[in-house]
């Protein structure tokens, strides 16, 4: 990462991701508590289903990290364009 990317990264982490995580945890805590209120116990079903799927995303994140998906973080954006350029050249050769 160059200097610009690092600045953007930390700004986003501190001002967006961390507040996002805190507010999300407050929400999850509130929804967990709400299930003991009268008439709200049914909310537990989707609540725990959502948490279950979210755990899948946590696992995906850990897997992607361990597989090195975030190592050269800008590379996929370049590779995608290179692949597209190859296809586009083939497409134009195909006789438009």
């Amino acid at each position, binding site marked *: 990462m160059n200097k610009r990317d690092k600045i953007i990264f930390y700004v986003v982490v501190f001002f967006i991701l961390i507040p996002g995580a805190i*507010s999300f945890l407050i929400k999850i805590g*509130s929804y967990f508590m709400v299930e003991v209120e009268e008439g709200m116990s049914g909310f537990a079903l989707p609540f725990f289903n959502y948490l279950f*799927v979210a755990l899948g995303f946590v696992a995906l994140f850990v897997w992607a990290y361990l*597989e090195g998906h975030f190592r050269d973080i800008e590379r996929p954006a370049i590779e995608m364009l290179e692949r597209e350029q190859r296809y586009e050249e083939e497409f134009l050769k195909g006789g438009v």
Partner: protein
Amino acid sequence: MKSEQDSIINYDLVYAHIVASIVLLAVVFLAGMLYSLQFLHLYPFPGIEFLSPGRVRTVHTNGAVYGFIVNGFTAALYWALPRLTGQRVMNEKYLGWFMFIALQGAVAATAIGILAGDSQAIPWGETPWYVDPFIVVWLLLALVQFTTPIYKLANKEPLYAANWYMIAGLVWIPMVYIMGNYVPVFFVPGIAGAAITGTWIHDAVGLYVTPIGWGLCYYFIPVILKKPVWSHALSLLGFWGLAFFYPLQGVHHYLWSPIPMYAQYAAVLSTIVLELAVVSVIVNFMMTLKGRAEALKESIPLRWIYVGIINYAITCFQCAIQVLLTTQKVIHYTDWVVGHAHLIMYGTFGFWIMGFISYLWPKVNHSETYSKALDEWAFWLLLLGMELMWVDLLAGGLIQGFTWWSLSPWMDSIRYSFPFWIGRTASGTLMSIGLCFYIYNFYKTGRKKTVSLIHAHEVGAGGGVR
């Protein structure tokens, strides 16, 4: 001999889903226009139960999602995913065509069921209960069909942001659909059920339409601009922010309801913070445009997409304000909400799909756009109509809200709303004219393909593989 891309992209499937999307968009427009006439005492089918305005309105909203948006996204996925991954989807020949027919069948069954009075009492989940299982199966098939190429690529090289977004949309939606369409109806009645329907409305947008839409934008924008996205790191941060913090957002649809207040406060807080994550995505796309903004003059697909992004930014900013309890006191149940819904569903996602189709249609036809002028007319009429409708409904909604708040007689609010309802029909008419231009151009572009292919065949040229 087939080229590499011809062997991984099934052009016929892209073609078929695009046609279905455009045809159903026309139906959605027609239903919306009919419903708006009811407010002007001009509804053309009074007393016919099968075509009663409430049912036609539900066809309008459900058709927009399952007909226009899902078909449009599916067409774009059949094009973009193989190009993004270098891999085929799981199976086009059997699964792809089965899914195409099943989707159109589900849309038709939904429309007929709704008109017959079989709607479920769930906002935006009115799909009759007997259609729901087929939609769930379809969504699971879509999950397998479209995640297969991503899975193959992920084992070879790091994934691009578009692929991550598509995974999120495809994984979340079957679960969101089951929760929203079954649980409140059959298992959890009452206020807890209402809270769940709130999560359905919002998560359907936030966990399917938004990630698939953003994912496709992450494909089409760099491809049209021929430059990489400004910051891939930022796009990944935006994605993981959405994947982790978006779920269970929709409780804010039931503010001032019997749901415990602390849960409502938590829903409001997390909604406002989530808008910050949205800003990171918008900044990324706007910065990608830096130095290439003149492309907006030439490329109408790009213009559709960027106007959609601006509308998205507006609706998200609006969302952060309208989830405040104070604002809700005024706007709840008013036309303000209708304006907001139109700007996000058509002004954003609809415009993106119009952009994707404008880009793809000449390509799948191996042709060029029939008329640039028609394209321009369609764009400006639809844009002008959309923004006018949005402003009109917001203003009308405020008038309604304050009239109710002041405890004026109910009929006063109807009388004050009337000019705004005329405005809605007028702006809808502008949009409908724009859509007619779009469809005519679309039709002629398709016809041009037929002619150019015949010509190519006659002169022995080897192009035009579909």
